[in-house]
């Protein structure tokens, strides 16, 4: 705590439920007169549990020019501009997201043990002899973690090619056995149904798929993906059987309940039987559930639980996957040991534009290309709202407050606008909470100059700095700020002094019985709510009210 730095946060008023949202088509924001009257009565309590979610540094806030309000991450709407892989920085089209999911399907993987990036390397013997450096390394390839030295060899996975790892990895299980793809399963299933219905099948069909059907038995252990595929196929076939040919002539199959026929039936539910298909009503029978692994049924296997426990006993804690490791896995359900973990394909990241929730104007819009960092639109609060910074008046003094000793702080308001602004600030006499410190603002009303040309600043800087220094030196002797007067003033900034008399943190001297008790979390920090009203005249009248809050060391 010895190096506590005073800070200022801004409160976004979006969580105040008594503010009506601005309706579309309303030309002006809600009139400030009635609103400010309400606001004057109400003081903001930085200790309230909800205050945590409405306090932000100024840099995190946006500003809506139409609502004349700051906008925090909670009162903006995000819209995705681009999806991209954070590792290879390739843009992924939104169509691919829908079909392939939200992970990178190239060769970008994270280590299942430590989440560091994995790199592909060859484990083939390095070529030797003359011109060896010109020979491309040959396979097999493995995924390597350069941080924890994990390798995909540990889970028995090797690759033939150094690229397209995602596709290669999806075809092998841990240990190197190939995964039966849903396509192969479907083939097998169709074949079985053909077998069942028509015993005399075309010979070439069997010979072609003969070796695949060997793998599929009715009690095999399925991984989550193939179980889902089996279940989906089973229920689709059930639906196809249950819903017969519709009005449009589709016969079940892929058109299941989402078919136009089903839709017309649903529409006819309340309007009478005009839309309804009479045949479908009569034929709605019961559907049976999945019965074996081919249909997606997985029986609870008590033996495997015992096996897991035995493994846990034998291999100990270091071979058990941690919660953090399981959290990163796509199908963590049946994983217990680190040998079952799989490399994690990188989750895609997005570039997002932001809109005001109230008026739907765009507040921030990045360029859509992944590699560019420019913004097309960027309305950020620091370019509209005066920044407020706080520092102790006496620089030599240590930052920690001493109970009952008046300590003075300098609040500096810096104006980013090209117009002069009138600032009025107010604080409650004592800070909210159990330990009430007394707070006095020595100069509650002042004007901050416009942010004029930067060149002017540069030219004037030398003289100004000189002035500042003499002022500081003069005040060093008396350390006394005059009430009603600005402490320091610059081209576009003004400093005023706030005096804080911190209270003692001894809970036993508190007045109320119920307040007594040990010091709770963060109660040793003095948090002062400061109401700031900024007025300026631009085209038309622009009133703006912001509640800022300063925290000071204790």
């Amino acid at each position: 705590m010895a190096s506590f730095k005073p800070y200022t946060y801004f409160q976004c008023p979006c969580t105040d439920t008594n503010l009506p949202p601005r309706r579309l088509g309303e030309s002006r924001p809600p009139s400030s007169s009635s609103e400010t009257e309400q606001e004057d009565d109400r003081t903001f309590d930085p200790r309230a549990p909800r205050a945590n979610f409405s306090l932000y540094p100024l840099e995190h806030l946006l500003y809506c020019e139409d609502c004349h309000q700051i906008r925090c991450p909670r009162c903006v709407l995000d819209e995705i501009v681009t999806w991209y892989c954070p590792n290879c920085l390739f843009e992924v089209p939104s169509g691919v997201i829908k079909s392939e999911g939200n992970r990178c399907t190239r060769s970008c993987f994270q280590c299942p043990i430590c989440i560091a990036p994995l790199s592909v390397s060859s484990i083939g013997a390095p070529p030797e002899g003359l011109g060896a450096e010109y020979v491309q390394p040959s396979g097999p390839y493995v995924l390597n973690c350069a941080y924890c030295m994990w390798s995909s060899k540990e889970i028995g996975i090797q690759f033939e090619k150094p690229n397209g790892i995602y596709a290669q990895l999806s075809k092998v299980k841990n240990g190197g056995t190939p995964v039966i793809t849903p396509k192969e399963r479907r083939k097998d299933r169709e074949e079985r149904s053909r077998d069942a219905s028509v015993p005399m099948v075309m010979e070439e069909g069997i010979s072609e798929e003969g070796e695949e059907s060997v793998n599929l038995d009715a009690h095999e252990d399925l991984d989550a993906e193939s179980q889902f595929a089996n279940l989906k196929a089973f229920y689709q076939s059930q639906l196809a059987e249950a819903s017969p040919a519709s009005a449009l002539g589709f016969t079940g199959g892929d058109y299941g309940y989402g078919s136009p026929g089903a839709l017309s039936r649903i529409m006819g539910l309340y309007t009478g039987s005009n839309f309804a298909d009479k045949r479908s009503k009569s034929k709605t029978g019961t559907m049976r559930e999945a019965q074996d692994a081919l249909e997606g049924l997985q029986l609870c296997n008590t033996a495997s639980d015992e096996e897991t426990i035995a493994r846990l006993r034998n291999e100990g804690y270091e071979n058990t996957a941690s919660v953090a490791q399981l959290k990163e896995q796509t199908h963590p359900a049946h994983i217990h040991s680190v040998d079952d973990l799989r490399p994690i394909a990188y989750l895609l990241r997005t570039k997002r534009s932001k809109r005001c929730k109230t008026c739907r104007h765009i507040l921030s819009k990045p360029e859509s290309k992944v590699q560019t960092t420019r913004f097309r639109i960027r309305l950020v609060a620091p370019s509209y709202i005066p920044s407020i910074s706080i520092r102790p008046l006496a620089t030599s003094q240590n930052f920690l407050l001493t109970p009952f000793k008046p300590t003075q702080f300098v609040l500096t308001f810096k104006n980013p606008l090209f117009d002069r602004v009138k600032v009025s600030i107010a604080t409650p006499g004592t800070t909210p909470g159990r330990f009430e410190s007394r707070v006095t603002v020595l100069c509650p009303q002042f004007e901050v100059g416009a942010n004029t040309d930067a060149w002017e600043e540069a030219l004037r800087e030398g003289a100004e700095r000189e002035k500042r220094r003499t002022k500081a030196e003069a005040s060093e002797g008396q350390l006394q700020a005059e009430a009603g007067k600005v402490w320091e003033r610059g081209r576009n900034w003004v400093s005023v002094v706030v005096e804080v008399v911190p209270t003692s943190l001894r809970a036993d001297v508190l007045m109320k019985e119920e307040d007594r008790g040990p010091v709770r979390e963060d109660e040793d920090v003095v948090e002062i709510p400061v109401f700031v009203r900024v007025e300026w005249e631009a085209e038309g009248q622009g009133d703006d009210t912001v509640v800022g809050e300063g925290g000071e060391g204790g």
Partner: protein
Amino acid sequence: MTSKRAAKGEYIETDTGNKVSRRSQIIGTTNIILGGKTVIQAEVIIRGDLLRAHQNSAEKQGSPVAVAIGRYCFFSKGCELRPPGKVYKGWFSHYPLKIADHVFIGPSSVIEAALIGSHVSIGANCTIGKFAIIKDYVKVLDGTVVPPNMVVPSFSIVAGRPGRVVGEIAEGEVEGMDLREVYRGIGNG
């Protein structure tokens, strides 16, 4: 780099405005490019001697570059810049370390990245692994170990051991990552 002025003080100021501490260790100066207005504090080590092992004759003539640094960079006390190295086609070789503009490196951090983009702020006691690529507008918090070969996309906040992206840089924070003011604040005075 070499135009030393007679003025006594902590920093040697070059013609392009670099402020280099007299107590820094810069090895292989001919292989280092400084874009100008860069501050190098005391006890900073820059290993310009770690060059590519075998230069192809086809490559353009002139002094090879081991470390390239842009403008308004700030290297705090005790940090180290090392070009990354690896075995490629049977040969061990170092590869150039490129640092763009407005890059802040905190005290005692070790940088072995391949590329650090503009407006990157790296905290104290960090390790940036070999061949890491850090794009523009990235903050690496104190004590982070960025693993080798990691790519950090723009507008990320990285922390942890191993480092991972823990947050995003807000739109309004972009201006605050400019290091011009920091450069002006450094001097012999």
